[in-house]
C-alpha cells in the first residue's frame, strides 16, 4: 500500500493519486517518444500484414499494439486496452512508427477547427442518438 511506503511522503502520493509504479521500465527508461504528435485521439493504423518477426527487439506490448491498432484505433483507446499509461504507449508507438509498422493520423487542431459541415453532422448525429 502506498501508506506503507518507506521514506518521506511525496507530495504527489496519496489516495487520489494512482499507485507508485515504474511505468518506464518497459520503455528502457525512455520517457519521450521518438517523434511528437501522438495526440490522445490520434488514430493509429497498423501496416497491413506486418512482418513482426523481422523485429526481434520489440516487446510483446509492441506486438499487441500493432494487433490492436488494426484498421485504426485512437491512442487513448490503445492505452486503455493495453492497460498501460498513455505516456508509455506513446514511447512504444514511436518505436513502431520509426520502423514503419504503424501510421499516425492526427486529429484536426483547435486552430483549424472542423468546418461547419462537421459541426452540423455532430449536432444531427447527437439529435438522432
Amino acid at each position, binding site marked *: 500500500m502506498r501508506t506503507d511506503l518507506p521514506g518521506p511522503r511525496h507530495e504527489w502520493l496519496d489516495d487520489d493519486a494512482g499507485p507508485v509504479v515504474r511505468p518506464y521500465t518497459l520503455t528502457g527508461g525512455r520517457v519521450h517518444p521518438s517523434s511528437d504528435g501522438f495526440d490522445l485521439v490520434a488514430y493509429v493504423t497498423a*501496416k497491413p500484414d506486418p512482418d513482426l518477426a523481422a523485429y526481434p527487439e520489440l516487446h510483446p506490448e509492441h506486438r499487441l499494439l500493432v494487433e490492436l491498432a488494426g484498421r485504426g484505433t485512437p491512442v487513448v483507446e490503445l492505452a486503455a486496452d493495453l492497460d498501460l499509461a*498513455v505516456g508509455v504507449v506513446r514511447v512504444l508507438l514511436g518505436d513502431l512508427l520509426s520502423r514503419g509498422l504503424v501510421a499516425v*493520423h492526427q486529429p484536426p487542431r483547435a486552430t483549424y477547427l472542423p468546418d461547419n459541415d462537421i459541426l452540423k*453532422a455532430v449536432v444531427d448525429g447527437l439529435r438522432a442518438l
Partner: protein
Amino acid sequence: MDSVRYDGERRGHRVPIALKILIAGGFGAGKTTLVSALSEVRPLQTEEILTGAGIDTDDISGVETKSTTTVAMDFGRITINDDLQLYLFGTPGQDRFWFLWDELAFGALGAVVLADTRRLADCFPSIDYFEQRGIPFVVGVNCFDDSRRFSLEAVRKALDLDPDVPMVLCDARDRQSGKTVLISLVEHVARQRGEPVPTA
C-alpha cells in the same frame, strides 16, 4: 512510406475524425456520471504518468530516482457516423493535475463545465481555465435531487459568466439530458465561428 503522418490521404480505408470534448467541474459535480451516461461503451480508463520532478528528461538514471505515480483519466466515446467520433474526457478534479488539462484541452472542440449549485464555487477554476485559453464552453447546471433549484440567471450572475456562454439545466445521469448539453456546446462553437448550425 507507411509511416507517413495523416495528410488526408487514406489508404484502403477511411480513418475517422475524432473530436475531443472535455467534461469539467468540481469534485463530485457529476463529471464521471455524465461521461458514463453519454458513452456508447462503458467508460474507459487509462492513466497518465505524473512525475514529482520535471518530466523533461530522457535520462534513465533520472527516472530511476523519481517518485512516479499516475492519475486516472476517464473517457467515453460517441460514434456519430463512420467518419466522425466524439471522445469525452472527464478532467481530473484536483488543481495539482492542471498540467494534464493542457494535454486534454489541446485541440479540443470545447468543454462542458458541470456546476453543482450546492458548491458553485467549485467550478470557478474550470471556468477560468477555459476563459483564459479561449476554449468554447457551456455550463451545465446539474440538478441534484436534494439541491435547491436556482434560476439560471441567478447562477449566471453568481458565476459572473459572459452573456453569450450558454447555460443548460441538466441531469448528468440522463442520456437525453446530457445530449442536450453537448448539442448546446456544438451550437455554441458554431456560433462563435460565425456559422450557426441551423436548428432542426
